[in-house]
């Protein structure tokens, strides 16, 4: 139990769980009906947890939460909305960004970042041919890695194409965004040999560390990682990693982690609801920290300034303290421009999304290893999608 000072009169019992174990821990907790009022929720699980009856739309119990809606980044707002209602306030919200090493570009005589994905392959070949890097491009595509799909589908969205149609069908035909992306991955890995095959065992931190020692010229990661990559205390490439808009149309995937109210809190009555909402507001909303009557996004701002954690709240992009802190490692204008082009990947709201992911990731691995053709990989992921979709119905 702890009690925060600075005017927030709230006692909270926090159960701290390593993130790898968080989801299974919550499932066990909820199945055992262990009292839990507020849950940290990933967009990947939101629909399942809602269907399980664990989380509730907060606006049904606290209509004032709707005041936050205009200030949320659109992709984040969409991600946190189910059945037309808002389910929480953002804690960590981010989007995938495209980073390139400007010093390696100078070395290779490349003038500007790629405008298309094919151009990216050409740049990689140039870096390879000049003996600068053998595999300039690496992804965090270990199976189960939390950003696997966010990164891959960012490439799809950046082509200006949607991966899912209005009926919830996966679009995999020739000319679809997913087809072009799979083709591009296969070519990068097998034809040009510029995509690092080790990608299949890497998590984000591995890509970050490899980029920090200039073994990758590119990183396509959540923007959160650029703070560490450009940190002069730990990185050899500090100041060299720049942001460019995602190639082609510039769209990217935005994602959210929010704090949501549990059904148990609602069942506990109005005091419980008030207490849960107060915590959710403290973590993701505006609170009067100094007791002077002015409210601010306290937690989000502290995280942003101290750790570079992105937030999904529009006014904070203009906060002078955040701009000042972030300017040390990133072009804040470019970051904001990319965030404005982020879209929510709607497939995450389907109940079979989590079931499908391991099969999808397996096919991507096979594609990189040359164990399956683009057509067969797409046929397999589509078949699995359709099967799970039918089962869910």
């Amino acid at each position, binding site marked *: 139990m702890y009690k925060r000072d600075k005017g927030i009169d709230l006692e909270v019992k926090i159960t701290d769980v390593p993130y790898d174990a968080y989801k299974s821990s919550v*499932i066990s907790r909820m199945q055992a009906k262990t009292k839990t009022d507020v849950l940290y929720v990933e967009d990947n699980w939101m629909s399942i947890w809602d269907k399980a009856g664990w989380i509730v739309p907060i606006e049904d119990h606290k209509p004032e939460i709707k005041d936050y809606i205009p200030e949320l980044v659109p992709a984040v707002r969409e991600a946190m909305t189910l059945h037309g209602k808002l389910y929480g306030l953002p804690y960590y919200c981010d989007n995938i960004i495209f980073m390139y090493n400007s010093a390696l570009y100078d070395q290779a005589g490349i003038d500007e970042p790629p405008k298309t994905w094919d151009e990216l392959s050409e740049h990689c070949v140039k870096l390879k041919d000049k003996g600068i890097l053998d595999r300039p491009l690496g992804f965090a595509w270990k199976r189960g890695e939390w950003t696997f799909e966010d990164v891959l589908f960012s490439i799809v969205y950046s082509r200006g194409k949607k991966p899912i149609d209005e009926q919830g069908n996966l679009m995999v035909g020739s000319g679809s965004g997913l087809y072009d992306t799979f083709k591009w991955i296969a070519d990068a890995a097998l034809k040009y040999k510029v995509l690092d095959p080790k990608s299949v065992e890497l998590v984000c931190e591995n890509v970050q560390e490899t980029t920090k020692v200039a073994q990758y010229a590119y990183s396509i990661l959540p923007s959160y990682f650029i703070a560490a990559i450009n940190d002069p205390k730990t990185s050899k490439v500090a100041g060299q990693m720049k942001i460019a808009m995602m190639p082609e149309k510039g769209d990217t995937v935005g994602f959210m982690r929010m704090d949501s109210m549990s059904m148990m809190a609602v069942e506990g009555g109005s005091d419980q609801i008030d207490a849960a909402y107060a915590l959710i507001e403290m973590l993701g909303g505006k609170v009067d920290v100094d007791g002077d009557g002015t409210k601010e996004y306290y937690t989000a701002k502290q995280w942003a300034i101290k750790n570079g954690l992105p937030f999904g709240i529009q006014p904070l992009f203009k906060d002078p303290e955040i701009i000042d802190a972030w300017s040390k490692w990133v072009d804040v204008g470019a970051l904001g421009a990319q965030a404005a082009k982020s879209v929510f990947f709607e497939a995450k709201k389907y109940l079979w999304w989590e079931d499908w992911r391991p099969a999808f990731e397996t096919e991507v691995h096979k594609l990189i290893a040359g164990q399956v053709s683009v057509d067969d990989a797409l046929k397999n992921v589509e078949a699995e999608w359709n099967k799970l979709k039918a089962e869910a119905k």
Partner: protein
Amino acid sequence: MSETSGTPSDTKFGITSTLPTVAFLTVLSTAPLLYAFALSFQKYKLTSPGQHPFIFLENYAKVVTSYHFTAAITNTLIFTVGAVVFVFLVSLVFSLVLNERFRGCAWLRILILIPWAIPEMASALVWRWIYDSHFGVLNAILVYVVPVFDSYQSWLGDPRYAMAAILFPQIWKEVPLCVLLFLTGYSTIPQSLYEAAKIDGANAFARFKRITIPMLKPIIQIVLVYETIMGIASFAYVYILTGGGPADATTTLSWYTFMASFSFADFGQGAAIAVFMSVISLIFIVLYFRLIPTRRFGAVGV
């Protein structure tokens, strides 16, 4: 060879005194198993709260026809057989060495326990850094110290190495316990047998084959059964090191059970896979008992 057994009153006392413990342990281990078995015949998805109809074999059918099943069962068998064989052989060799009296032997017996004392999750994280394809110590050794390769290898990302890469930590972790078990087994073998064999002219190998191995059979059985169960249930190394990849090169039933239950939110399917795992364990155990018959408890003479 002769055999002695207790008197009827000894037997009665033995049964009476162990019955409460046996009953308690039976309930403790059987109840969850029965619950899982019952669950495997129900639809138990978190997305259908409160509705758990009996669906007979539907979960089993779903599991068997699933995308992951073939790889999971094949890899589980490869992993388990590999783990059992190597753990058995390595621990047998180590225990024979440690059974000899030499300087530092007592320290070595303690040191060898270290891997066993480290929690599996923690050791998996350490192994992840050892194997790291860009900065790992294993690669550094194999490229710079003992130059076997000219570049860093992807131990966890290359399908040729991935299974061996998760198998090795399992062997490393399990060997210490089995060494201990074997050492305990050696201490129960009467020295007079070895002395008699020596007088009869039996060399070291003959003594090992004719005395050590037959007398160790109950321990061998325990080691095989225990390691089979540990192999089938091994999870942390798969989850932390490879996530079941690359592709599905290290997808195992334990990984699949976890995913079905905690990612797909389908406890019915998770239970069905767990039943598969139990059946496989049972088949192995029956096989061991048939192939390695031991004398019944109470046998003390030779």
